[in-house]
C-alpha cells in the first residue's frame, strides 16, 4: 500500500516538520486575527458611519474572494507593483490575518449586538457601575458566545494553511510530494501511503480543536 516509504530514513520526521511549518503560520495568523478582530469588532460596534461603511466593503471582499486569490495578489501582485520583496511566509501571514481579522471582528460584533439592552439596564439598576457591569455581566456572556466560534476559526485557519504550498512554501503536502518523487523507483505506491498519512495528520491536528469547540458550545448553550 506504500506505507513502507514513510519508515525509510527520516521521512516521517520530515513530514511532521512540514506540518510544523503549516501550524506555525496558522498559529501566528490566529494570534494576529484574534487581537485585531476583537479590536475591530469593538470599534465597529460604536457605529461610526464611515468606519462601518469601510468595514462592510472589507467584509464583502473577504466573503467572496478565495484566500488563494488573495495569496496570489499579495505574493505576486503587490511585490511587483510596489517593488518590495516579500517572503512567501510573510505573504501568507498577511493574507490569513487579513481574512481572520474580518471573521473575528464579525463574531465580536455579532456577540455584542446579541446582548439585549435589558442586561445593561438591569446591571445599572442593581447599582453596578459601568466597569462592573462589563466585568460581571456583559463580558462573561460575550465570551460564552464567542469562545467556541473563535476556536472553530483556529481549525479553519489550520486547514487554510494547506494553500501555502501553492506559493512555494515547503509544508506537509510539498514534503509529501518530494518523498513520493524521491522513492518513485523503490516504492511506486508511495503516493497512497504518504497522502493517507497527510490526510490523517491534518485530521489529528484539527479534530481535537473542533471537538473542544463543540463541547464548549454545548456546555454554555444557555
Amino acid at each position, binding site marked *: 500500500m506504500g506505507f513502507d516509504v514513510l519508515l525509510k530514513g527520516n521521512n516521517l520526521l520530515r513530514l511532521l516538520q512540514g506540518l510544523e511549518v503549516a501550524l506555525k503560520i496558522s498559529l501566528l495568523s490566529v494570534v494576529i486575527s484574534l487581537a485585531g478582530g476583537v479590536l475591530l469588532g469593538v470599534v465597529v460596534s460604536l457605529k461610526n458611519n464611515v468606519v462601518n461603511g469601510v468595514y462592510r466593503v472589507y467584509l464583502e471582499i473577504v466573503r467572496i474572494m*478565495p484566500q488563494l486569490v488573495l495569496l*496570489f495578489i499579495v505574493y*505576486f501582485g503587490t511585490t511587483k507593483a510596489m517593488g518590495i520583496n516579500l517572503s512567501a511566509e510573510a505573504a501568507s501571514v498577511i493574507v490569513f490575518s487579513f481574512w481572520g481579522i474580518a471573521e473575528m471582528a464579525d463574531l465580536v460584533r455579532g456577540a455584542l449586538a446579541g446582548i439585549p439592552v435589558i442586561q445593561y439596564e438591569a446591571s445599572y439598576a442593581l447599582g453596578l457601575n459601568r466597569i462592573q457591569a462589563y466585568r460581571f455581566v456583559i463580558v462573561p456572556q460575550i465570551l460564552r458566545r464567542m469562545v467556541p466560534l473563535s476556536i472553530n476559526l483556529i481549525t479553519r485557519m489550520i486547514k487554510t494553511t494547506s*494553500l501555502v504550498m501553492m506559493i512555494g512554501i515547503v509544508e506537509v503536502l510539498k514534503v509529501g510530494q518530494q518523498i513520493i518523487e524521491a522513492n518513485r523507483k523503490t516504492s511506486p505506491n508511495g*503516493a497512497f501511503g504518504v497522502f493517507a498519512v497527510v490526510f490523517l495528520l491534518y485530521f489529528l491536528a484539527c479534530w481535537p480543536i473542533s471537538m473542544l469547540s463543540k463541547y464548549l458550545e454545548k456546555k454554555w448553550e444557555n
Partner: protein
Amino acid sequence: MDPEVLNAYFPLYIQAFWLTVKIGWLGIALSLVIGAIAAFTLHFRIPLFAKITAVYVELFRNTPLLVQLFFIYFALPKIGVSLSAESCGVLGLGLLGGSYMAEAFRSGLDSIPASQTQSALALGMKRSQMFRYVIFPEALTISVPAVVANMIFLLKETSVFSAISLMDLMFTAKDLIGLYYNTTEALFMLVIFYVVMLLPVSVLGSLAEKKVRYRSFGV
C-alpha cells in the same frame, strides 16, 4: 494596465471561468445530495449508518480540500481507483461540501420541536404528509443561511483545483504570470472573474435569507 493584454487574455479566462463554474456547481449539487442523505441518517439515528456518517462528517470537516483532492487524485489510483481530474474535482468538492451541508440540514431538522410532529400526526396526517408539509418546510427555512454560506464557501474552494492540473481560473492566472510576466493584468482578470462568479450568489443568498425569515415565525 495594458488594455490589449486584457483583451488577449479574456478568451482564456472565459474558458477557465466556465470550467470553474461547471465543476463548482456540480460539486455543490453533489454536496446537497450527500448532505441531505447524511443529515437524514444522523437525525433519525439509523443504526450503523449513523456511525459511518458521523465518521465521514468529522473526517471531511477537519481536513482541507487540497489534501482531500491530493488523496483522491494521486493516492486512489494506486489502489486501482482512477478518476479524471474533473471528476476528482466534483467528487472532492461534493464530499467536502456534503459534510458541511449535513451539519446545516441536521441543525434544521434538530431544531423542530416534537410538538410539531405530534400536532401533525394528531391532525391525521400520514408520515409522508407530515414530512412534506410540516417538517421539511420548517427545517429548510432554518437551514437556508447555513446552506447559502456553504455554497459561497464551496465556490471559493474551487480555487485549489489548479493543484490537480485542472485549467481553472487560478491555473490560467498562474500560467499567464509565468509565461508573459503581465502580473497586474493576470491578477486583475482573476479578481474580476471571481467577483462575477461569487457576488451574485452572495447577493441572492442574502435576499433568500430575508425572504425565508418571514416564514420562520416564533423563532
